[in-house]
């Protein structure tokens, strides 16, 4: 029978550290939070080798008194909490007094600090938990912590670390979260001596979002600020057109702390229901503020989960606030649909731009000659449509349309199966761009390009889903010139690209050598394909998954292969297109999320003409 033994302290600290410190980004998160709690206004983070070698956090906060330095590395020692009751009124980021103890237990840490009112600071070192003597240190007011050789005494943990770019991705994610939740803070992040982010203190939240996630996303944001009792929800939500392939771009902060909450995440997705295709996720940066006693943050070692006293109220607030806000935006779009019939994107992007998401848009000029054809006829079609349609705008119609809104395109999106076609539908092509079809429900206006694109996209996706990807190797590698940053970024994602059939080698000086490409894209130049993907990589906040990349490439292909606005279709082509509509899974949006079809119900027409 095994006997019970008290574990030695060294093991205890390692176990405790294991919960809090999982990877370099955990260290960064904990140290940043300490700096924030110390009232810093400027924090410099410097990491080397994705944080596995060195993490250095320098702040200008209140510092630590020399006499407290020994306690700083002790477990359950903190300045942020004194009694158990405080646990329910937590106003600081940390409170458990574990972070430094944990970090000190698994790394070689040097802590140097000087309170602003002291003439001299002090430093202390921790080598895997063994503290060095306190020595005087003469530095600027604030605290400087250097963490070297993380997990040097826990080789197993070290082995479980991912590649340098991945770990660095986590580190910048930790910095991103903190920068978003503390808009008054100046934050600098450097990696291997190179600047990654420099966030000035003056940048408000929306600028920070632009900084981290691209200016295009910034343009697609709607501000939100709703108070409900003690709860306040504010922040920015993105237009449905900015949808992503994963929920990673849904940032939720509770009392300034980034958390993961399945229930609130669900509420957000629910609010976007009908506006996103299945499998796509909304983008949002939401801040939920509530009295500290309404939320328990002490349930997860890294505090990334919280428990609400009234979780239903929080759920309800997110759902209704976001939905209401979206409805406000969509209101105008839908009104115009019902009165003017302009299939206008809510965010005002050019209706025919390749994609409303930031990534593929810049591709146009790079892609095969087909792409060059787009702007010409497209613009014409657009300008031909708009003036003609804008005339009949009637104020009267727009005032009494509130009850009609629900019957607009959304009613169509909620139908799982397309309307059954009457045996010989009457079809009319307008402006060589739109098809008008008579159905039992009403008049259907179809964007021929968007619908065809969607059908082709589904088709291609299905094929790829079933078979493996064929890769054509190049006999003579194709040199592709990129900016140094793009090249570095691309090389980081070599693995993911290879999975897509794009194998790249470094040629030096921003030039990459492309040695293979997916055969299915054979009619496009391999260089064009790679550049398309690179543009995608550079604008993305993190490495896109194979699925997302593939999706993007497929939609690009579909876009080029589809009939264009301005193409005159024969009667046969029209009926074939309309008939295929039922074959695609999700025909009401093109792969970029633009609507393909708008329904003007017969009832609606009758009402407009005062027949009912």
């Amino acid at each position, binding site marked *: 029978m095994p006997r019970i033994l008290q574990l030695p302290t060294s093991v205890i600290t390692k176990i405790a550290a294991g919960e809090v410190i999982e990877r370099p980004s955990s260290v960064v998160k904990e140290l940043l939070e300490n700096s924030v709690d110390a009232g810093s206004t400027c924090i410099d983070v410097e990491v080397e080798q994705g944080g596995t070698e060195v993490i250095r956090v320098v702040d200008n906060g209140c510092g630590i008194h020399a006499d407290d330095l020994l306690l700083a590395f002790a477990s359950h020692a903190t300045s942020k909490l004194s009694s158990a009751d405080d646990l329910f009124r937590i106003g600081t980021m940390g409170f458990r007094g574990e972070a430094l103890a944990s970090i000190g237990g698994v790394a070689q840490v040097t802590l140097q600090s000087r309170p602003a009112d002291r003439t001299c600071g002090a430093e202390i070192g921790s080598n895997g938990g063994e503290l060095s003597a306190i020595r005087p240190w003469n530095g600027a007011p604030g605290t400087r912590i250097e963490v070297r050789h993380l997990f040097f005494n826990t080789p197993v943990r070290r082995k479980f670390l991912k590649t340098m770019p991945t770990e660095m991705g986590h580190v910048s994610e930790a910095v991103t979260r903190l920068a978003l939740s503390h808009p008054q803070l100046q934050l600098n992040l450097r990696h291997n001596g190179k600047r990654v982010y420099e966030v000035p203190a003056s940048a408000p939240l929306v600028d920070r979002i632009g900084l981290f996630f691209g200016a295009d996303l910034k343009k697609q944001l709607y501000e939100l600020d709703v108070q409900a009792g003690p709860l306040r929800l504010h922040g920015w939500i993105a237009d449905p057109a900015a949808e992503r392939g994963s929920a990673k771009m849904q940032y939720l902060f509770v009392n300034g702390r980034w958390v993961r909450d399945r229930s609130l995440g669900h509420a957000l997705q629910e609010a976007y229901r009908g506006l996103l295709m299945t499998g796509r996720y909304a983008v949002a940066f939401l801040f939920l503020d509530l009295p500290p006693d309404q939320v328990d943050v002490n349930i997860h070692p890294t505090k990334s989960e919280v428990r609400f006293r009234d979780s239903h109220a929080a759920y309800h607030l997110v759902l209704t606030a976001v939905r209401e806000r979206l409805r406000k935006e969509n209101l105008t779009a839908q009104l115009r649909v019902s009165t003017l019939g302009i299939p206008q994107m809510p965010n005002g992007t050019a209706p025919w731009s390749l994609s409303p998401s930031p990534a593929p848009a810049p591709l146009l000029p790079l892609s095969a000659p087909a792409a060059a054809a787009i702007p010409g006829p497209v613009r014409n079609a657009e300008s031909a449509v708009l003036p003609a349609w804008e005339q009949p705008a009637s104020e009267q119609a727009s005032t009494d349309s509130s009850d009609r809104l629900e019957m607009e395109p959304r009613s169509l999106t909620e139908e799982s199966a397309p309307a059954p076609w009457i045996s010989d539908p009457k079809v009319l092509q307008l402006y060589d761009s739109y098809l008008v079809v008579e159905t039992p429900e009403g008049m259907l206006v179809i964007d021929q390009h968007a619908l065809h694109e969607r059908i082709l996209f589904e088709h*291609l996706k299905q094929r790829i889903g079933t078979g493996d990807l064929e890769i054509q190797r190049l006999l003579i590698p*194709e040199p592709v010139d990129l900016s140094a940053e793009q090249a570095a970024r691309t090389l980081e994602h070599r693995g993911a690209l290879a999975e897509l059939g794009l194998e790249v080698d470094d040629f030096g000086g921003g030039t990459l050598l492309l040695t293979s490409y997916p055969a299915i894209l054979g009619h496009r130049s391999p260089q064009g394909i790679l550049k398309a993907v690179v543009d995608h990589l550079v604008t993305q906040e993190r490495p896109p998954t194979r699925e997302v990349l593939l999706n993007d490439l497929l939609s690009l292909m579909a876009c080029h292969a589809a009939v264009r606005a301005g193409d005159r279709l024969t009667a046969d082509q029209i009926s074939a297109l309309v008939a295929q509509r039922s074959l695609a899974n999700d025909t009401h949006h093109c792969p970029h999320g633009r609507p393909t079809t708008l329904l003007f119900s017969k009832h609606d027409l009758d009402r407009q003409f005062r027949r009912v």
Partner: protein
Amino acid sequence: MKAHCPREALLSACQLASVAVPSRDVKPVLRNLKAIAKADGCTLLATDLELGVRLEVRSIKVDEPGEALLPAGRLVAILRETTDEELTLETTNETSVIRGAANEFEMPGEDPAEFPDIPTFADDKHHEISAGALREMIRRTAFAAAKESTRYSMTGVLWEFEDKVARLIATDGRRLAVASGPATDNGGGDTKGQTHVVPTKSMALLERVLQDDDQVVRVCLKPNEALFKTDRATIYTRLVEGRYPNYKEVFPKKTTVKVPLTVGPFLSAVRQAAIMTDEESKRVIFEFAKKKLTLKARGAESGRSKVELPLDYDGKDVTINFDAHYVSDMLRVLPADAALTLELVDGSTPALFKHGTDYSYVVMPLT
């Protein structure tokens, strides 16, 4: 000028010259053919400034020498649609008139002096190749050049002369063809260290003017242009600029597998197997085993195919996949009874097809 032209002969000459007429009217005067009539015959000129051709049409009987510009498209149409044995061409500065027994076509004339001059073949240092050999070399390489590429040099065919051997090289980055043949050096010298890439359009025109096998073609390569001269025709072309990839490096260094093949049956098997490929799955699987080659293809919607071909092969089993086009493109330009060897290392490195000593074709597999 005034001339009596045998219709058929003039038609084929005009069609040939029209290859050099630009399809877009950058410069309207270039849409014409220029006819220069002298006592002993007529020369037709056409150019798009990149490529120019002078064609002699000897069977024309010239009554009155002179020069004229004739719109290429209309002229070809007239010659094609009429049925007369012989047509009369009469031009003044104002009009050009073509007359048959029961028809007459009048076109406004243009000033022949406006037509840009096309360089003639000066008795320069040059190389000589027999027309038959050159035509075969062009046929075996030009198809492999890139249709469009960001590396422009690959859209043409590289010419090399070395030790009385002429060599043509073409690649699109996925496959590469090298054909060589005997040449006589008339002071042209080795082209080592120089790059002469002739655009594929010029190569196509050159191939078309090489009709008589025993004729000698004179080739003069200059830094930015090239001239080719046969008995009847002179072709001038500008060269494609840019560095050509070092093609010698793509040849597999050491191959471990050698498979003897015969073009006809092999091509037939490849084409059969390729029936079941489609846009999304172009792969044909080549399984080499003792005494047998099995080809397989499977399309996403089309279905699958399996074709077996007996082989005179005793080596180890090897499987390699190709885009069937890259293989059949090459097989198509070889005679059906020609012997071919396929040299391989494995399924992921370049494969080398060899026909005799003067034709090699390297192709990269699909994986």
